[in-house]
């Protein structure tokens, strides 16, 4: 029997879980639970849309999903099904398209500004924690489906085409600013930051974290469980470094660390930090 396939992608309103529409619903639930459990605290508080593809959900199944996500601390925003013409794409989101095609993610440095969400009055603790989670997930841009085959494409589409073919399933978020104390970036793919990450800021990525600046905050790479995720920074001075389910912090006797770029990753079951060598196979999945 085929294993239930789940793909998590970022979209304008949070994360979207694309669910296999072929397998049994019960397998799907198990697969989701595994995914959420392995994600640890990574997804807590995230807004989630569920796309069930062509599957037609029964009332109970919808109810099951409604309970499932909140029980892992996620906020379910909507369920999209493509099974019939009405759909229930209540978000009215033009960007939600059929299928699991690769998506290109916009450069998203402006997205922090939209972090203010209306808060219910009176829940000041709750308020604080929500406020500090800055919404970062970029709007999905659907690759023009026909751009590869149609001759009459405009320049933009032509430029995008090579990226699509190279990109495979990789998603990367580019942030062109400094992350300050209290700001959090969560992203299921890789995160690249052109700026510093200050103490008190957090970057949590399903994939790798690359910082072209000083990293002084908390990094969590491979937060969905990937042991070969890496964290590289121009200057790596993290408060705490987490990769998959490993947590480390720098030694207490506090020197400033070396003046060269470094890479942190798991080696022999331990998080190690080494000098980053250009041209070596030190980067990423060198299996």
């Amino acid at each position: 029997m085929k294993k239930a396939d789940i793909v998590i992608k970022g979209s304008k309103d949070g994360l979207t879980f694309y669910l296999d529409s072929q397998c049994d619903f019960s397998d799907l639930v198990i697969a989701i639970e595994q995914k959420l459990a392995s994600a640890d605290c990574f997804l807590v508080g995230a807004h989630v849309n569920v796309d069930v593809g062509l599957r037609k959900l029964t009332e109970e199944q919808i109810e099951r999903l409604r309970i499932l996500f909140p029980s892992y601390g996620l906020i379910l925003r909507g369920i999209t099904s493509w099974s019939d013409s009405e759909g229930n794409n209540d978000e009215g989101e033009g960007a939600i398209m059929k299928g699991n095609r690769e998506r290109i993610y916009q450069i998203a440095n402006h997205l922090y500004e939209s972090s203010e969400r209306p808060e219910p009055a009176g829940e000041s603790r709750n308020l604080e924690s929500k406020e500090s989670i800055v919404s970062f997930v970029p709007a999905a841009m659907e690759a023009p489906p026909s751009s590869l085959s149609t001759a009459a494409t405009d320049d933009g589409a032509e430029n995008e085409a090579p990226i699509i073919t190279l990109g495979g399933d990789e998603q990367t978020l580019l942030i062109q600013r400094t992350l300050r104390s209290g700001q959090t970036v969560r992203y299921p793919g890789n995160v690249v930051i052109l700026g510093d990450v200050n103490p008190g800021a957090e970057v949590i990525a399903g994939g790798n974290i690359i910082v072209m600046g000083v990293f002084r905050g908390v990094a969590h790479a491979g937060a969905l469980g990937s042991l070969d995720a890496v964290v590289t920074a121009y200057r790596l001075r993290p408060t705490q470094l987490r990769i998959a389910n490993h947590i480390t912090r720098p030694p207490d006797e506090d020197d400033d660390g070396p003046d060269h770029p470094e890479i942190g990753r798991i080696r022999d079951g331990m998080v190690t930090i080494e000098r980053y060598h250009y041209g070596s196979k030190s980067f990423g999945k060198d299996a």
Partner: protein
Amino acid sequence: MGEVMVITSGKGGVGKTTTTANIGTGLASLGYKVVLVDTDIGLRNLDVVMGLENRIVYDIVDVTSGQVSYSKALIKDKRFPDGRLNLLPAAQTKDKTAVNQAQMQKLCEDLKKEFDFVLIDCPAGIEQGFKNAIAGAEKAIVVTTPEVSAIRDADRIIGLLEAGGLRNPRLIINRLRPAMVKQGDMMSIEDMVDILAIDVLGVVPEDDTIVISTNKGEPAVLDDNSRAGQAYRNITRRLTGADVPLMNLEVSEGLFDKVRKIFGMGR
């Protein structure tokens, strides 16, 4: 049209109120029409530091709720007989939620039509009071002391200011002790700028004359013999666009060039 400027910090007790009083008084001494707005509802202080406490009749909540016009609530500072320095005091007995962001925006809109500078003294913290204080502001000054915790909060505040549309806030480092910096016992200006990465508007030394002037209700900026007062005079002039290098006591020699660069004056 005047300029609405919020003085904020995140961490409490680092010198927001002191700074608001001194900058405001300093700007008035240069001839500008100034109004100071105390938004620290329930913990009002600015009136005391200004020596105007005993003249309060109406407060900010009376104005924002529409009970009285702002001109009725403003207290004119007697040190400037032409009435160019004014204070809108905070409410002491009312609830913090008595003011909302829309009301603050309206108030600032109204005030900046009459005054050259509207200075808003922000409460500590990042809750409603902070949001109110920045709601009508166009520029921001972040005050910090040379301590890791204050810097962390300043960093957080700068992020929140940016999220609220207030870009490029400027930094005032308060209570610096040059001797301690020299010995390596206190964060240097360089260290702080390294993390916060914003322009330094000025550095105010730790100075007993601040305590004395606060108790007397007479801002130190008016005291020619106060070092902190001199620092605030410099800050005031920088705010009006003058190129004033940092005082010698504010920085050790080696840092001087770096700080000049921060001001963009090296060119």
